[in-house]
């Protein structure tokens, strides 16, 4: 098939051609970037925290008029209250393990510090690696369901307790594999010594866990999202948080039993609707904005593609109507149905081809602009290529119906006056 007659015909419909090409270009640019955003968000939401997230729930509560954590005496009293809660929770039917812990992955509230290979490292200086601390007791590994890959777990003898705002030495810690690799690229972190928060007191790494995300998911913490440090310490304050792992299928029963149980231990405390939360709720809340953004982008993409496809159908139908007679003449001169069909398909391919070329430029430009203004990364070529193929396919699909109608124009039309 020769392209010449098609090009000659297109030249007579400059405005229509430009409009369709422009529409395809804009659609491609927006859809590529929107789908890229969706892909990024899905990847973010699906990354594992390192926990065994089923059968895990969280309790946050606050005592009223509790002793001050600023005095040694108050700290002892607070610790006794905390241990009393632990005993009660551990005796709850259906509970597999319980521990006090300051936060959990995705909970956003965190204790961030830094660890260094040298003592008394200055804050913000080189060689400091940012980390999020989890303060818990010897039950931490089974309760979180994180996997120990080297060294040993905490035992009851490792566990200390301290006032919430105190900073005593941390003799032993467990760190994540990611943090171990960062601090000791040669491997073998177990048994090595690190210094936390510019302290001069050494902390010995006794174990390494495979993976444990920090509590924050915001972009500011992206660089150290997997650098967690576990400290065997019960924090004493006028509040205490617990993580509970239940036996399979017992999650809801155990969660319902918690509030009455804790009120029975000590009624002078605050427990509200947000106090007892399953980990799946924590996860849903943490990623709600990401899921929402993905859904919104998805809806907009669907509308865009539908509008563009419908636009192509509409305009091609108009052209078919306009060239009714010419089609009849071609048919009368011996063109087969399939020739007419091909004609419109090739015509669409030419227009869409021009559209996607401009669209690719626009897509990359939009991506660059988003990168300079917002937190975006470079769009992978695969997204753009897929977008190009999808646009061409949509163009062909949209043009098929009017093109088929054109191919059904009988040759006799040529002989009739309009």
């Amino acid at each position, binding site marked *: 098939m020769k392209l010449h007659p098609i090009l000659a015909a297109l030249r007579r419909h400059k405005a229509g051609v430009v409009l369709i090409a422009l529409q395809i270009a804009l659609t491609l640019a927006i859809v590529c970037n929107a789908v890229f955003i969706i892909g990024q968000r899905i990847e973010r939401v699906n990354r594992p925290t390192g926990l065994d997230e089923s059968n895990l729930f969280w309790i946050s509560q606050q005592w009223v008029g509790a002793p001050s954590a600023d005095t040694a005496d108050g700290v002892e009293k607070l610790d006794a209250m905390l241990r009393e809660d632990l005993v009660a929770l551990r005796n709850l039917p259906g509970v597999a393990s319980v521990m006090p812990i300051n936060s959990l992955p995705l909970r956003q509230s965190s204790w961030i510090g830094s660890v260094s290979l040298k003592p008394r490292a200055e804050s913000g200086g080189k060689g400091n690696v940012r980390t999020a601390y989890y303060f818990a007791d010897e039950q931490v590994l089974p309760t979180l369901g994180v996997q120990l890959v080297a060294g040993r777990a905490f035992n009851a003898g490792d566990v200390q307790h301290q006032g919430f705002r105190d900073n005593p030495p941390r003799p032993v810690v467990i760190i994540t594999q990611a943090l171990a690799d960062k601090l000791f690229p040669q491997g073998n972190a177990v048994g090595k010594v690190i210094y936390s928060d510019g302290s001069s007191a050494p902390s010995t790494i006794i174990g390494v866990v495979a993976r444990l995300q920090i509590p924050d998911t915001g972009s500011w913490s992206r660089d150290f999202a997997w650098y967690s440090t576990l400290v065997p310490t019960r924090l004493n304050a006028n509040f205490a948080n617990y993580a509970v792992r239940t036996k399979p299928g017992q999650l809801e029963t155990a969660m319902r039993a918690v509030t009455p149980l804790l009120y029975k231990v000590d009624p002078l405390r*605050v427990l509200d609707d947000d106090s007892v939360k399953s980990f799946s709720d924590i996860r849903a809340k943490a990623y709600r904005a990401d899921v929402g953004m993905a859904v919104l982008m998805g809806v907009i993409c669907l509308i865009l593609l539908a509008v563009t496809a419908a636009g192509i159908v509409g305009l091609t139908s108009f052209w078919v109507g306009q060239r009714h007679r010419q089609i009849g003449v071609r048919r009368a001169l011996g063109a087969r149905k399939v020739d007419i069909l091909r004609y419109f398909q090739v015509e669409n391919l030419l227009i869409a081809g021009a559209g996607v070329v401009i669209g690719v430029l626009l897509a990359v430009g939009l991506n660059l602009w988003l990168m300079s203004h917002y937190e975006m990364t470079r769009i992978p070529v695969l997204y753009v290529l897929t977008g190009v193929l999808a646009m061409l396919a949509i163009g062909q699909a949209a043009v098929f119906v009017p093109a088929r109608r054109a191919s059904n124009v009988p040759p006799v039309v040529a002989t009739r006056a309009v």
Partner: protein
Amino acid sequence: MFGYYLELAIRSLKRSPGLTALMVLAVGFGVAASMTTWSVFRAVSGDPIPWKSAQLFVPQIDNWGPNGRSSDGEPPVAMDYTDAMALMRDHRARRQSAMYQISPSIVPADAGKHPLNVSGHAVYGEFFPMLDVPFKYGSGWSASDDTNRAQVVVISSKLNQKLFGGANSVGQSVNIERRDYRVVGVLDDWNPQPRFYDVVNSGGFSSGTDDVFLPFQTAIQASISNDGNTNCNAVPAESGFVGLQHSACVWIAYMAELDDAAAVTAYREYLDGYARNQQKAGRFGWAPNNRLRDLPAWLSSQRVVPSDTRVSLLVALGLLLVCLVNTVGLLLAKFLRRSGEIGVRRALGAPRSAIYAQFLTEAGIVGVAGGVLGLLLTVVGVASVGWVLPKDIADLARLDVSLLVLTLLVAVVATALAGLYPTWRASQVQPAWQLKSN
């Protein structure tokens, strides 16, 4: 004449219902997507106190030095206790308040009820007039209450409803962390979003309300510790909440009211002078690196508007643009199909302006229909943002008359603009040609 054009337009639109429906749908969806995302963007990027934001300033003092600065040289975003108290003592602005976030528990007088947890702020008395905080009953406290560490409290109307059934509770007492405080004021509905007076601790938007306000020094004395962020460049030398007050950790928000440019310049000089004095005294080992931003600049430097809402608005506007390009194409096809009719009208003496009027009327009708559909879809869209967005932000997106009017206006104006080129092409139709070819 307009009635006639209207009739012509409706007849023409009816003749190709598929094409008409397509245009109306495109305009409707494009406008609705833009307006829904706009309603969210408008809600989060609005000025929370437009009548006064130009007079409210947030000072920042570099008490950490070069190692504690962010990569772009910015000092800490909050203050340590020492600097905040020094600024309060010097009292150089018309009004000012240091503040920190608290989360105390309240024991209801009714013994059968469980204690409840509330959030709030420890502030100075000038906080209330400075921010034009509305009171339902009573008022804030005086400067002497601040210095005397009076046991007084201002509560929200929500907490007043919960504790006192909404009655005037001024003079009543509230048990906070097992101490009694006398209510001096009950706020009217006041929950500015973003929570501009302390974005560092609230993160900008918050689905809860601030229910209690205590005098700053009263709260310090009662050891009601801070509930927000504490950022330290070094581990505090002493332990506990008192140790925090003696440390260089930053946890206190600060706001000052400065009436005019002269006051701003004077305050800036005062801050630099203060930092220089600290340098001389040996507390700071670096030259002053302070900031003094007015509220809008401060909110933008803290990136309070979530970037997702901007990106969504942008993408939705892109969708609207595509829908309009689509409408231009379809209108062009529709109008030029009627070249014969145009030719006849022109030959019978209709001027170009008549053709313009006729086809713009037709475009306008598509715009109005698209706008009405857009209105319905916007209502659905705003109602369902709660499914998609985090609660604290979704709650802010509201339908109001201005949004509805804007929706209709955008639809009609956009469609009329889209109709301009096709109409121009229609008006260029040569009557002789058309008549000949028929």
